[in-house]
């Protein structure tokens, strides 16, 4: 463990002096494989980021937490994935259909899907993520109601779909529709200081990267493992719930889930993790 508290490596990670105090610690030198699938937890950063490499949050967690994610049996998030599998073939709505009625075996049809969202939704003229895509299918094709935000079913089905891309590198295609302008909006949101504490996302996840705020070892804030099992809640946590939690902690007003602001942020932050493997369901504290 001593190694983790060694001085920060020379390189792009020399953080500027800032308000977040605490010891510096590198991401650990460890590799992750889940059920024989190699997980990319560090890779070359996409051009335009102030880092040389992007790191999965897995590298910033304790050894026990890392081991829990590495063992898919011990990973409590897999319970949610299994629940999602049930929902996949559960008929709902006026059309008498389930997801499986059109999409058959998720292991084939959903492979790679979770690695390439958000996408451009031409009908709504805005980005669409997995949760909203599920709702769109439910309303338009199944004659069912959209899921309530953060309902157990929404999290389970999203986790199941994203889990089909386990190990695949994240990549978003910004040439679709107007995604580029939403990316710009997301970037602006990322660097805008808000709240009584006057923090932006970058305050912690760029400037404070590798430092500790109390017991928390600050990571790059990558989202390749969402929905994520968090010990803090002892439950699966969706991305937009996590965004809202972070924003609440800056003592700012929380934007609504799937609002324009958070969809732009999801697109931008997903892009920041380009090349990292999908880890859903990741395990964090």
């Amino acid at each position, binding site marked *: 463990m001593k190694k983790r508290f060694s001085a920060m490596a020379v390189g792009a990670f020399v953080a500027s002096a800032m308000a977040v105090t605490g010891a510096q610690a590198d991401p650990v030198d460890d590799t992750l494989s889940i059920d024989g699938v190699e997980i990319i937890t560090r890779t070359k950063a996409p051009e335009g980021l102030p880092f040389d490499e992007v790191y999965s949050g897995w590298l910033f967690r304790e050894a026990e937490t890392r081991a829990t994610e590495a063992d898919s*049996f*011990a990973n*409590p998030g897999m*319970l949610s994935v*299994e629940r999602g599998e049930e929902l996949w073939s559960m008929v709902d709505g006026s059309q008498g259909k389930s997801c499986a009625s059109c999409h058959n075996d998720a292991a084939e049809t959903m492979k790679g899907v979770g690695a390439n969202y958000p996408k451009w939704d031409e009908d709504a003229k805005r980005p669409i993520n997995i949760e909203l895509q599920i709702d769109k299918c439910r309303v338009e094709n199944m004659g069912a109601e959209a899921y309530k935000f953060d309902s*157990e079913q929404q999290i389970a089905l999203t986790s199941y779909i994203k889990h089909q891309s386990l190990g695949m590198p994240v990549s978003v295609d910004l040439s679709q529709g107007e995604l580029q302008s939403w990316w710009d909006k997301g970037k602006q949101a990322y660097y805008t200081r808000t709240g009584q504490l006057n923090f932006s996302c970058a305050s912690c996840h760029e400037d404070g990267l590798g430092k500790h705020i109390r017991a928390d070892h600050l990571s790059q804030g990558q989202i390749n493992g969402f929905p994520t099992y968090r010990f803090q809640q*002892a*439950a699966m946590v969706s991305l937009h719930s996590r965004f809202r939690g972070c924003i609440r902690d800056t003592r700012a007003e929380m934007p609504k889930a799937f609002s324009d602001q958070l969809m732009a942020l999801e697109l931008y932050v997903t892009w920041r993790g380009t090349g990292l493997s999908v880890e859903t369901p990741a395990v964090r504290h």
Partner: protein
Amino acid sequence: MATPKPRVKLPKSAAAGEVVTIKTLISHEMESGQRKDKDGNVIPRKIINKFTCEFNGAPVFSCDIDPAVSANPYFEFSAKVNEAGTFKFTWVDDDGSVYTDEQKIDVK
């Protein structure tokens, strides 16, 4: 919450006398009985209060569980396997429900 679903993981076969690792997990909300709902009423306790593992009828491992144990209790323990047989796992719920799982193991 969906019906609690037990999961068990152990090797399909082992050498005689080998010590194998057994992992078990059950999905369960483990409501502690110490929380209150929005109206201030106590939410009744509902936890798995007992877990046992038997091998060919003989006890291998058992424990009583109290409200401090978190949701989705996970147990990992080891057992020495001298003969082929069946592990039987039992979880007892506060409401009287009993969830079971069985897994066979061969001796090479």
